[in-house]
């Protein structure tokens, strides 16, 4: 037994392979038994097995056949050659066979000839019937068909021989011819019903309406165009030509002049003189044209009109050659100038601010609060000394020279006030800043202090009894002292 088949069977039935094998053997035995007894057996969903001479045959179930042939399902058989035409002889043979006379001898040749004769006679009768129908009034096709049917039948019956095959052939062909003739008759009927065109005079609805235009209109238009051209040429070529100006021409010219003048007024802003000249000439032309419209017999007015039109033509030509100057330039120029001014102002403003930002600033000495980190001053010793005496005493203490070249000289224990001229963060910088003031007739020293948590080394100049004296010294020594010099109380901790 096929292992794969048994395994699949066992899997589908949910049994062991041994049981599946036994079940399959039982089924096969039963199928063979049915074949022996009944000659055929069926497996539902698979097909029918039959016992035949050559052996066991199988016919698949319809569902299985369709499923197997799904790729080519619905494909029909395609004819290769056209159907053969039905010849009278073939039809006769077919009828003979159908009549069950397969063994009887047939006379196809005689029957074909007689059938052909009958066909020819039928065609002649059809032609006669057509002619008769053409002469008659339109009638229902049925009547015509009936007549023709009678004719055909008569011909068919008249042409037939006692031979049964011929009669059968004619009767077989008559209906076909009848249908053909009836169709042709119907076509002819339709042709006779054709309506005549409407342009015929005897049409029941009457003739067609006349067109709106006439050829004569074109002639009139052409003539007017030619006349205008001729007049213009005359005016351009001959200034003094005595030509009669009709009312229509004058009216045609006047509005043209006004339109041209208005155009020039819009375009030419700068050519005022030209505009004025044109306006004047146009006005004269209009004024001249109006009386001309009434009389049309004054040669002087005509000349003025001709000259005005000549000037206009010349100005038109000039304008065409030179492009018109529009007032747009002025607007552009004014806008451009405005932007230039704005730009210059912006540049100057920026330069001013940049200068202010970048210019060097003079170092200003620090100006802390007067009450900052300063203990109460000991004014007892200071009050004892006059303001100038302290300076003189110090100067006398140093007999070397009235000009101090070294720092020092301020008695911290004596207290008093001094003038601070510099404040540095290092003693070296303070000593360097004190050098310019050593030539003053005042003591200069570096005083140490703390301001906002930062140790400052201040250069003090002079030692004064009180704040007022210190401020007076600042005013007195204004040029020598830096701007912003400020008085400071002297303490022992400096």
């Amino acid at each position, binding site marked *: 037994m096929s292992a794969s088949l048994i395994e699949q*069977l066992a899997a589908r039935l949910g049994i062991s392979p041994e049981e599946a094998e036994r079940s399959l053997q039982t089924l096969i035995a039963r199928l063979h038994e049915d074949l022996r007894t009944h000659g055929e057996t069926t497996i*539902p969903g*698979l097909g029918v097995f039959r016992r035949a001479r050559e*052996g*066991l045959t199988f016919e698949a179930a319809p569902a299985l*056949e369709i*499923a197997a*042939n799904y790729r080519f399902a619905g494909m029909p058989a*395609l004819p290769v050659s056209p159907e053969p035409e039905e010849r009278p002889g073939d039809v006769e043979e077919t009828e003979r066979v159908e009549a069950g006379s397969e063994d009887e001898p047939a006379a196809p040749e005689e029957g074909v000839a007689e059938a052909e004769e009958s066909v020819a006679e039928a065609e002649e009768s059809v032609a006669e019937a057509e002619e008769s129908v053409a002469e008659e009034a339109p009638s229902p096709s049925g009547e015509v068909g009936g007549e023709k049917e009678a004719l055909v039948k008569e011909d068919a019956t008249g042409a037939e021989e006692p031979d049964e095959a011929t009669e059968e052939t004619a009767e077989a062909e008559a209906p076909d011819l009848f249908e053909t003739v009836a169709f042709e008759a119907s076509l002819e009927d339709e042709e006779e019903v054709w309506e005549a065109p409407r342009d015929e005079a005897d049409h029941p609805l009457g003739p067609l309406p006349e067109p709106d235009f006439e050829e004569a209109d074109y002639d009139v238009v052409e003539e007017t165009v030619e006349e205008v051209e001729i007049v213009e040429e005359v005016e351009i070529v001959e200034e003094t030509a005595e030509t009669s100006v009709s009312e229509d021409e004058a009216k045609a010219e006047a509005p043209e002049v006004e339109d041209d003048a208005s155009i020039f007024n819009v375009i030419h802003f700068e050519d005022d003189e030209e505009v004025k000249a044109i306006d004047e000439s146009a006005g004269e032309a209009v004024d001249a044209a109006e009386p001309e419209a009434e009389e049309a017999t004054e040669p002087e007015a005509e000349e003025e009109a001709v000259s005005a039109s000549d000037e206009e033509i010349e100005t038109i030509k000039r304008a065409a050659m030179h492009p018109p100057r529009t007032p747009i330039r002025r607007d552009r120029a004014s806008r451009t100038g405005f932007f230039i001014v704005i730009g210059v102002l912006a540049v100057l403003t920026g330069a001013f601010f940049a200068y202010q930002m970048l210019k060097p600033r003079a170092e200003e000495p620090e100006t802390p609060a007067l009450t900052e980190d300063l203990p109460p001053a000991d004014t007892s010793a200071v009050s004892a000394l006059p303001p100038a005496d302290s300076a003189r005493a110090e100067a006398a203490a140093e007999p070397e020279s009235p000009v101090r070249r070294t720092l020092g000289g301020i008695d911290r224990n004596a207290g008093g006030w001094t003038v601070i001229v510099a404040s540095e963060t290092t003693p070296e910088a303070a000593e360097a800043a004190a050098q310019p003031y050593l030539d003053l007739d005042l003591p200069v020293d570096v005083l140490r202090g703390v301001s906002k948590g930062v140790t400052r080394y201040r250069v003090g100049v002079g030692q004064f009894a009180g704040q007022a004296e210190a401020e007076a010294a600042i005013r007195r020594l204004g040029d020598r002292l830096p701007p912003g010099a400020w008085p400071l109380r002297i303490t022992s901790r400096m």
Partner: protein
Amino acid sequence: MAQISTEQVANALADIVRDGVLEGRAVDVPGLGSFHLEHFPSRLSEDENGCSVVLPPRDTVVFEAEQ
């Protein structure tokens, strides 16, 4: 264990044969024969009117009985 009826076995056999044949495999049933799918190309034939026609190709289940 429930007994399997012959009808159930026949149905299962039919399913196995159908699935195998449609997949293009040959299925051999011992004691009966083998089933396989065979392709027949298109061919000329005549219809009932005697006109030549081209029959479309087809796939058919072919059974070969066991000798």
